[in-house]
């Protein structure tokens, strides 16, 4: 007989998506259209409070509210569905174990994302990424840094980025750059939220994002020349 405390499917959160569920990248000079969870969501806050008291239905509700964003983050970081599922599972198991320690000092989504990011970074370390700290993950070796050359105007990328090429270029970014690029440009987090999640300074977040974009630009500019050689 099924345990009534554990619903067979988590309650569908589709009718009540978390704030910022839509990807909200930020073009360099325009404000974010929707930053994730700027104010506490009363439905979420209630679910958190109940889950902290051991209400498994509330935990399932939190899973439904956040599963897409956590899974998408994991998938973008590891580019492998099986690994992304394992990492998502581990992130929510950690949430289950630690939800009692959530104090409400930060947004719940920020707290959960930070937990998921740590799970992903731990996984990358186990896979052999030479990362002993997040700072190192965010500051790749010299040969992985973006070039410093200025662009010639006739090489600018405007309107010419192929989706697959960009996906490939993002996948080749060093893990630290990739993480900040995904959090800011793809998932729409603000720098102050990223700094809080990653325990880094605001300036570091801005600088790493800039380097990630420069490195992508290098890769995208190099791509047509590689294609030409074929």
């Amino acid at each position, binding site marked *: 007989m099924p345990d009534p405390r554990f619903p067979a499917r988590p309650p569908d959160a589709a009718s009540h998506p978390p704030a910022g569920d839509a990807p909200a990248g*930020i073009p*360099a000079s325009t404000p974010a259209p929707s930053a994730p969870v700027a104010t506490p969501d009363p439905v979420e806050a209630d679910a958190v409070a109940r889950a902290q008291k051991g209400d498994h239905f509330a935990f399932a509700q939190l899973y439904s509210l956040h599963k897409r964003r956590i899974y998408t983050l994991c998938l973008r970081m590891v580019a492998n569905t099986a690994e992304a*599922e394992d990492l998502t599972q581990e992130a929510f*198991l950690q949430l289950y174990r630690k939800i009692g320690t959530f104090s409400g000092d930060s947004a719940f989504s920020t707290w959960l994302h930070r937990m998921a990011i740590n799970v992903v970074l731990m996984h990358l370390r186990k896979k052999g990424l030479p990362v002993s700290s997040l700072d190192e993950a965010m500051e790749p070796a010299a040969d992985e840094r973006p070039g410093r050359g200025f662009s010639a105007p006739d090489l600018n990328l405007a309107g010419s980025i192929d989706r697959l090429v960009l996906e490939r270029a*993002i996948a080749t970014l060093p893990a630290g750059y990739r993480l900040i690029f995904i959090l800011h440009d793809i998932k729409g987090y603000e720098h102050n939220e990223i700094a809080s999640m990653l325990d880094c300074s605001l300036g570091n977040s801005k600088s790493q994002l800039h380097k990630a974009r420069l490195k992508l630009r290098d890769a995208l500019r190099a791509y047509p020349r590689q294609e030409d050689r074929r």
Partner: protein
Amino acid sequence: MTEEPDNLSCAAFQAQLPELIGSGVPLVFHPHIQSCECCRALLADLETIAEAARNLFPIEEPPDKLWKQIEAAIKSQKNCSDPC
């Protein structure tokens, strides 16, 4: 002593770029951008990359089986921690 915005070298301007971009202030009217074709092209490229990224990835849905796996793992943890 800091350089005036319209007297910045490209290197000095680019050193400020992460902070300028991160501030969210439109840079199209920045004196250096107005006078420097290379940095204007660089900025356009970076904006294009950010815009392309925004439209790149849809939010992905994890498979339904994942909740069942999480649920089973939680039950397993509870059984381990419950006194026999």
